[in-house]
C-alpha cells in the first residue's frame, strides 16, 4: 500500500479512509436496526470498502455515469451520496432520493450524481453502462461509464453481450468486478472455469486488470488509468478486484450453512478497514487520538442520519400510481434539451455522411 505512489495526497488518503469507515458504520447500524425489527432487509458492503472507495475516488462525480450494484455503499458515498440518503432508503421513506421508498435498500440512484437506477436481476446494468458509453461517443461529451457487479454475475449473458458490444465499438466503459469468491452460497469454483474473471477481457478486445481489492490506493490507480485510457479513445477495461464478504449474503441469509466460522474469522483478520487504519497510523497520517476523533465524528453522522430518516414520513399510497408513464406532455424534437445537442462530430474512423442535400424523400 502506498498512497503517494498512486498519486494521492495525504488529505485524500485520509478522506478515503473516512469514507470506508462511514460505509462500515452505516452498514453495521443497518444490521442492528434489522435485528431490532426496524428494517426489513440489509445487504452489505462489509469487506468491499477499500475496492469501492478506491474506484469512487478515481471517478468524476456528476460527470462519469456510474452503474453500481447492491454492495456498493462505499462507492456511492465516495461519489457524494449522503448518509441521510442511505438511511432514508433503508427505512423506505418518502424522501429516499433513490426511489421514494419503492425499491429495496442499496438500489442506488441519483440523477444529479449520474448514478443510474438499478434493478435486482444481476448484470442487467452492464449493457446500460455500454449505452451511456455509447452516448459519450455519440455526443463527444468526455465521460466514462463505470459499472460494477459481483463475480457470480460475470456469468450472466448481459456481461458477455454488454462487454462484447463495448469492445466492438471501443467504448469508454470500465467494468469492475468485486470478486468475493461467493454468489450467495455458491463458491467461485462453481461459477467460473477460467482462472479468473479479468482474463475474459481478452475475448472482448479490452484490457483486463487484476488488483488487490483490499488496497484502496492500488484500486484508485488502476481505475484512474482505465479512465484515462477510455477518455483517450482506447476503449474499455475489465478490472477484477479481490475482495471479501464479511457478512452473510444479506440479512435473510445464514452463511453458517455453507462456510466455516474459521474461514470467516480468517477474513476478519484481513479486514480492509483495519488494514487502512493501520497504514494511516504507520505512515503517521493520523495518530490514535485523531483516529478516535474520526470514529466519534462518523458515529455522530450515523446517529444523525438514522434519527432523521426514522423521523421522516413514509410514502403515501396515494402517490403509488405516479411515474408509471410520462406525466409531462410530449415534446417532439426535444431530446437536445437533455443532452445539449452539441457533439454531432463522429469519432475518427467512422464515415460521416456528406452534408445534408435537399429535404426529406422518405429515405427511398
Amino acid at each position, binding site marked *: 500500500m502506498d498512497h503517494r505512489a498512486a498519486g494521492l495526497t495525504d488529505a485524500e488518503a485520509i478522506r478515503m479512509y473516512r469514507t470506508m469507515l462511514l460505509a462500515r458504520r452505516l452498514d453495521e447500524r443497518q444490521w442492528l436496526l434489522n435485528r431490532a425489527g426496524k428494517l426489513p432487509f440489509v445487504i452489505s458492503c462489509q469487506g468491499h470498502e477499500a475496492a469501492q472507495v478506491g474506484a469512487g475516488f478515481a471517478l468524476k462525480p456528476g460527470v462519469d*455515469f456510474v452503474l453500481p450494484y447492491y454492495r456498493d455503499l462505499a462507492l456511492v458515498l465516495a461519489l457524494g451520496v449522503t448518509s441521510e440518503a442511505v438511511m432514508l432508503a433503508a427505512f423506505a421513506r418518502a424522501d429516499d*432520493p*433513490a*426511489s421514494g421508498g*419503492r425499491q429495496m435498500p442499496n*438500489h442506488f*440512484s441519483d*440523477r444529479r450524481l449520474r448514478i*443510474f*437506477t438499478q*434493478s435486482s*436481476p444481476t448484470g*442487467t446494468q*452492464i*449493457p*446500460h453502462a*455500454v*449505452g*451511456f*458509453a*455509447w*452516448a459519450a461517443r*455519440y*455526443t463527444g461529451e468526455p465521460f466514462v461509464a463505470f459499472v460494477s457487479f459481483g463475480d457470480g454475475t460475470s456469468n450472466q*449473458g*448481459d456481461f458477455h*453481450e*454488454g462487454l*462484447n*458490444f463495448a469492445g*466492438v465499438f471501443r467504448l469508454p466503459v470500465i467494468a469492475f468486478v468485486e470478486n468475493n469468491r461467493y454468489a450467495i452460497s455458491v463458491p467461485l469454483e462453481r461459477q467460473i472455469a477460467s482462472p479468473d474473471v479479468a482474463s475474459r477481457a481478452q475475448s472482448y478486445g479490452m484490457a483486463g486488470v487484476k488488483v488487490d481489492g483490499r488496497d484502496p490506493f492500488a484500486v484508485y490507480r488502476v481505475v484512474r488509468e482505465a479512465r484515462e485510457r477510455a477518455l483517450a479513445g482506447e476503449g474499455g477495461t475489465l478490472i477484477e478486484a479481490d475482495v471479501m464478504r464479511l457478512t452473510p449474503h444479506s440479512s435473510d441469509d445464514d452463511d453458517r450453512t455453507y462456510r466455516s466460522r474459521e474461514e470467516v474469522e480468517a477474513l476478519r483478520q484481513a479486514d480492509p478497514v483495519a488494514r487502512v487504519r493501520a497504514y494511516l497510523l504507520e505512515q503517521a497520517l493520523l495518530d490514535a487520538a485523531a483516529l478516535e476523533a474520526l470514529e466519534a465524528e462518523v458515529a455522530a453522522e450515523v446517529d444523525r442520519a438514522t434519527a432523521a430518516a426514522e423521523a421522516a414520513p413514509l410514502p403515501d399510497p396515494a402517490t403509488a400510481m*405516479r*411515474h*408509471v*408513464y*410520462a406525466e*409531462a406532455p*410530449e*415534446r*417532439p*424534437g*426535444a*431530446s*437536445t*434539451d*437533455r*443532452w445539449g*445537442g452539441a457533439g*454531432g462530430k*463522429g*469519432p475518427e474512423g*467512422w*464515415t*460521416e*455522411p456528406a452534408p*445534408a442535400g435537399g429535404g*426529406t*424523400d*422518405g*429515405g427511398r
Partner: protein
Amino acid sequence: MAVKTYIEAIREALWQAMERDPGVFVLGEDVGRRGGVFRATAGLLERFGERRVVDTPLAESAIVGVAIGAAAYGLRPVAEIQFADFIYPATNQIVNEAAKIRYRSNGAWSVPLVIRAPYGGGVHGALYHSQSVEKAFTGHPGLRVVTPSNPYDAKGLLLAAIFSDDPVLFLEHKKLYRLAKGEVPEDFYTVPLDRARTVREGDDVTVIAYGLMVPYALEAAERLAREEGIEATVLDLVTLYPLDRAAIVEAARRTGKVLIVHEDNGEGGVGGEVAAVIAETALFDLDAPIRRLTGPDVPAMPYSPPLEAWFMPSVERIAAAMRELARF
C-alpha cells in the same frame, strides 16, 4: 398526398425523426449496410452515417440494454429486433428494465426508446418467423405496446413513439409491409399512442381487431354489407397496452354484439383482456356472448401452406363469425 406502402411509411418516419432530432439514432442487426432485412432502414446509413445507423453485434439483450443506457442519457434510440420471434433474449431488458425505470426511480430517470419488431404470419415464416409476441409484452405497466394497421398510422404512430418519453414496443405486421397501401402526408404528424380508432361504423355487429386483422375485418365487413346488408363497426385497437378502454366500451355498446379477432393464440391473448373490459363495464348492453376468433392454441404457426392457412384467421372466417353474431 402520395400513396405509400406500410414499409415506406415506416422508413419515412425514421427519416423525418432523424432529420428533426440529432438525438434519434437506429441500431440493430443488419440495419446499416443492408438497410434492414425488410429494408425499413434502407438509405439511412448513406444519409445519416455510421454514428446514427448502427449495425450491432447479434445480441438482442445488448441491443435493448444499450438503447436503455443511451435513452437514459437523453438520446432517442430506435432499436430494431430483426424478427419479433427473436425478441425473447431481450425480454428481461424490456420488462424488468425499460418498463420499470421511471417507476423505480420515482420519476427521476426515464428511457425514451422505441423497439421496432416485425411480427405476424401468413408469410411462410413457420414457427420462428411468424410469431405474434404481444401477449408476452402486454400487461407490463410502464411499457407501451402499439401496432399500426395501415400506412398512415404506421408513420404517425412511429413518430409519436420516437418522440414519446416512454419506452414503446412498436410491432409492425410483416404481411402488411407491402400489402397495405394508403395515403400518407409528407409532413410531420403524430398519431396518439393511447387511442383506438373506429375505422368503420355500423349498427349490427362490432369487430375489435388490430394489425393485419383490421384490413381483413374491413374486407369482411364490406362483403357482408354488400351481400347481406349486415353493417359492422370495426375498431382498430392500435394500442395493445395500455388499452383504450373507453373506445372499447363505446364500440361494444354501439351494437351489443362483439367479435374480437387476433392472430395471436386465443388463451392469454389481448382479446381476453378486451373481453374483460367489456364484461366489467357493458355486460348489460350486450345482446350476445362475446366471441373471439384467434389463432389456435398451438405453440406457433406451422410452415406447410395448408397448415399455415389453418392457423391464420381469414376474411372468410371473420365474415362467418360476424354473420353468426349478427343473426344471434
